[in-house]
């Protein structure tokens, strides 16, 4: 089957193509140069005047795993405001803050997203995360597995195990949980919370293992570098949400000592202590640090005003913030000598000083980080806001007067403390294409995604350009996933099942001997049942495939 998208304006930053009129051919799920000699074009769609981009990629979105299901369970009152009826090809479900898996897939696809990555998959909960992602239609999926508060790693570090041994463990964990990357959340803190610690700074020793968060970050960042895993360590830094935490964030950057790192939902980690309320924006300093450190990237975790629910592995912080829950309820869990989780519903209010400043901090970071290849458009769905708010966020970035109108409506004290109003920058369409497609594909090592060159997956989005970017990005005219038209002007026209993206780093399998022994002595399942096989992934993806990406790095040295 050969499809021609004729005459669109191509925006493909990976190839430095900006609004160049051209044709795109798709054959059997892939983008190709053009017809073979004598080959018939089966379908031709005239897209003259439309913008064409690769499918968008959400590199940090909580779409699978126990904490999301806890959130769903806790919030029937939220679902009721956004019922999703069975209609056409689509099954019923629910939307808003903690949408059902089916609705998640449909809505992402209708918005022009063709991949989403779960950023906090607990090793012991990985099977559930894959089962949920397996029931998320159309889009491709993948996950970053969490380490850093697991007792096996902390024991290794306490015992002074070699970096090679730790690399083996990291490699084993990524491979056996079928992950694409590795995340650390409040390094050591989730573990220390189990020992009744309530705050763990970057350089404080864990009360039982006597290692520091800085050591954990460095060890894991180095492990990924040495294992040649494309995506650098995905770091949810210490002290999330704490006034003054910008210093922790800056110290985390230096603590990585040049190893590539990715700082996630950095908005929540960019706060100062200036002003009467001892809460201020340090977005400028954080953006400057990112600008000056080419090995550092970040996603923002923008907040939007309204009801949402925060789902985090950082149960130490979530327990601390549970009192701010709205509605006032929370689930906090210690998990399997492996990790933890905390789920707290939240309502961000534009008239609330702290929330308003959080909103401004996020936007400041977007606008002050100069390189769109190193800052990613996220709301940390659903922690800052549901992913369905992305078109609105894009407009805030692309339209200064719209942004300033919004700024005029927030808490005036927060607005006065923010420098947002003085920033003139407006993101270009090319920059939006970089931060939502080209850059996420690059940083995740997905060589055949995020661009439109022959050889790429035929994940293609066709937009009717509009002076209102929110309107443009809400319901693209056509969305193709693996060459199949799946959405048309916001309606789902075909339901397919995306692939699972993973890496399989090389490691010494002899690590399974001490691990098997550890499982038998201390845990409550067998190592063999902990591991997730390729066949299992294929079994649970409803027909989606398993895509293994190479572990290789360019020749950057540290």
């Amino acid at each position, binding site marked *: 089957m050969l499809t021609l998208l004729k005459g669109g304006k191509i925006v493909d930053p990976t190839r430095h193509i900006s609004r160049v009129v051209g044709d795109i051919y798709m054959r059997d799920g892939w983008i190709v140069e053009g017809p073979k000699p004598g080959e018939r074009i089966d379908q031709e769609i005239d897209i003259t005047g439309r913008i064409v981009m690769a499918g968008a990629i959400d590199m940090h979105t909580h779409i699978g795993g126990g904490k999301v*299901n806890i959130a769903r369970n806790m919030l029937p009152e939220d679902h009721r405001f956004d019922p999703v009826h069975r209609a056409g090809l689509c099954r019923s479900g629910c939307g808003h803050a903690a949408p*059902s898996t089916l609705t998640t897939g449909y809505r992402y696809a209708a918005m022009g997203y063709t991949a989403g990555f779960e950023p906090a998959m607990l090793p*012991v909960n990985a099977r559930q995360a894959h*089962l949920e992602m397996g029931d998320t239609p159309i889009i491709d999926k993948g996950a970053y597995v969490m380490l850093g508060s697991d007792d096996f790693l902390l024991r290794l570090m306490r015992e002074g195990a070699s970096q090679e041994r730790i690399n083996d463990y990291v490699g084993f964990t990524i491979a056996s949980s079928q992950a694409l990357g590795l995340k650390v959340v409040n390094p050591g803190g989730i573990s220390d919370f189990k020992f009744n610690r309530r705050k763990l700074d970057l350089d404080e020793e864990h009360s039982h293992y006597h290692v520091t968060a800085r050591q954990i970050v460095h060890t894991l960042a180095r492990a990924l570098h040495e294992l040649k895993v494309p995506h650098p360590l995905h770091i949810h830094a210490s002290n999330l949400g704490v006034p003054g935490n910008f210093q922790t964030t800056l110290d985390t950057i230096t603590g990585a000592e040049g190893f590539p790192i990715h700082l996630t939902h950095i908005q929540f980690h960019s706060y100062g202590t200036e002003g009467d309320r001892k809460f201020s924006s340090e977005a400028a300093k954080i953006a400057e640090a990112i600008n000056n450190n080419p090995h550092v990237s970040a996603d923002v975790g923008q907040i939007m005003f309204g009801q949402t629910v925060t789902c985090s592995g950082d149960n130490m912080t979530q327990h601390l913030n549970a009192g701010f829950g709205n509605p006032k309820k929370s689930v906090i869990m210690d998990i399997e000598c492996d990790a933890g989780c905390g789920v707290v519903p939240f309502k961000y209010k534009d008239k609330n000083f702290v929330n308003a400043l959080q909103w401004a901090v996020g936007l400041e970071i977007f606008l002050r980080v100069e390189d769109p290849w190193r800052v990613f458009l996220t709301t940390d769905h659903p922690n800052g806001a549901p992913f369905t708010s992305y078109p609105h966020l894009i407009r805030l970035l692309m339209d200064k007067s719209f942004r300033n109108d919004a700024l005029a409506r927030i808490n005036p004290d927060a607005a006065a403390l923010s420098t947002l109003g003085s920033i003139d920058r407006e993101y270009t369409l090319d920059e939006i294409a970089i931060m939502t497609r080209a850059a996420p594909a690059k940083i995740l090592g997905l060589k055949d995604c995020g661009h439109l060159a022959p050889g790429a997956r035929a994940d293609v989005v066709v937009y009717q350009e509009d002076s209102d970017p929110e309107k443009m990005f809400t319901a693209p005219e056509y969305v193709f996933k693996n060459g199949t038209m799946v959405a048309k002007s916001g309606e789902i026209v075909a339901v397919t099942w995306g692939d699972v993206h993973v890496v399989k780093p090389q490691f010494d399998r002899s690590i399974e001997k001490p691990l098997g022994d550890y499982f038998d002595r201390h845990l409550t399942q067998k190592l063999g049942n902990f591991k997730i096989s390729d066949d299992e992934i294929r079994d649970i993806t409803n027909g989606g495939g398993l895509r293994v990406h190479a572990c290789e790095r360019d020749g950057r040295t540290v």
Partner: protein
Amino acid sequence: MATATLTDVACPFCGLGCDDLTLDVSGETLSASGGACTRAKRAFQKIGSLPADTPQSWVEGKPASLDQAMAKVMDLISASKAPLFGGLATDVLGMRGLMELADRTGALLDHMNSEAKLRNLRSVQDAGWITTTLSEVRNRADVIVCFGTDVSSRFPRFFERCVWVEEPMFLEDSEHRQVIIIGQPNDLNGATSPNGRVPEVISLSPDRLAEAAALMRGLVAGSLPPKIQTDLPLAALKSVAERLKQAHYGVIVWAAADLDWSHADLTVQALTGMIGTLNITTRCSGLPLGGSDGDFSSDAVMLWQTGYPFRTSLASGTGHYDPVMNSTQRVLHEEEADLVLWVAGLDPDRTQVPSTQSASGKHCPMIALTSAGSPLISEAVVQITVATPAVDTHGYFFRADKIVSLPLRKAIQRSHPTVAEFAHRVMAGLGEKAC
């Protein structure tokens, strides 16, 4: 005759999800050993030892071929305007199939254990809680309070696997753990330490436990009046409260099925409120054990596919969750369903089915999907033996702490359809017909 020995087999016959069983397969005969408890041994043996001439399906109580049974199923489902999918004792893959069919037919979904599960769910949806998982208990818990349950009666290997272990990582030894049972235990063997130390029992009848939970919450919070009048054993409960405050990692264990009195969700909330207060100064967690009859497995699938837990109706084309109106018993009693699809696809000894008779004496027709070895259900118009995950099909099972899901492997080859295959066959039969 094929013989094989399978190791590290996961067991789906209670919520504990032990995965260290050994299964000896000899032809179609299964015997579980290794650490298997009596319940696991019985279930594997019963499902696995089916005489060759056992019928696979029945129509109106008489043996029938699968095709004959499916023809009857199609008649019933095609005629139904308000189906109820009950029981739902199945694994993740079974539930995925049932959800597709439920969405297609606008069914109401309710599990055989919902009444117990709601005692926890109401509390979570109202206030939330702080909980822990099996391996954390195994390695950290220094004070374990079993509230209203001896645990072992429902989860036979709990103490062996989570308490009396050789090397808890963060305790000097297991022997010094304090185990306190509040209630009327049936079985103290599990809770007795390997050296013979029997657990402390604060003997209270079930009708006093709600009050005891509230009292303990007050004792921990220090919010009781100084001269409280009660005939509960105040000194003993005070001592428990003090020990929880002094504990490094206290754990309150309960099984909602054992809290069998009206408004027991308030008892759960008293316990979780107490745990919340304890966590201001130390660590303490709840361990609300469940997961038997696949209730956590099928509920998890419902949650991620619809956003709602059991007792959700898809009749209007989207999920409508109502924990009171959508109960199996009420719906059948009030004739709000015209067909029951009863799924009891795990433990063949879970034989209890709801009364299909309404207030006016009318019977609602029932289709029953049951494990091999299950008795004939007299209420069922059609009964079909389905493959059981961990025996004659593979699957995935959520265990008691809701975090770990285990792969269930196929041990023997048989021709029984899986629950998902049944659902897909029905959907194929319905074709494009609007429902």
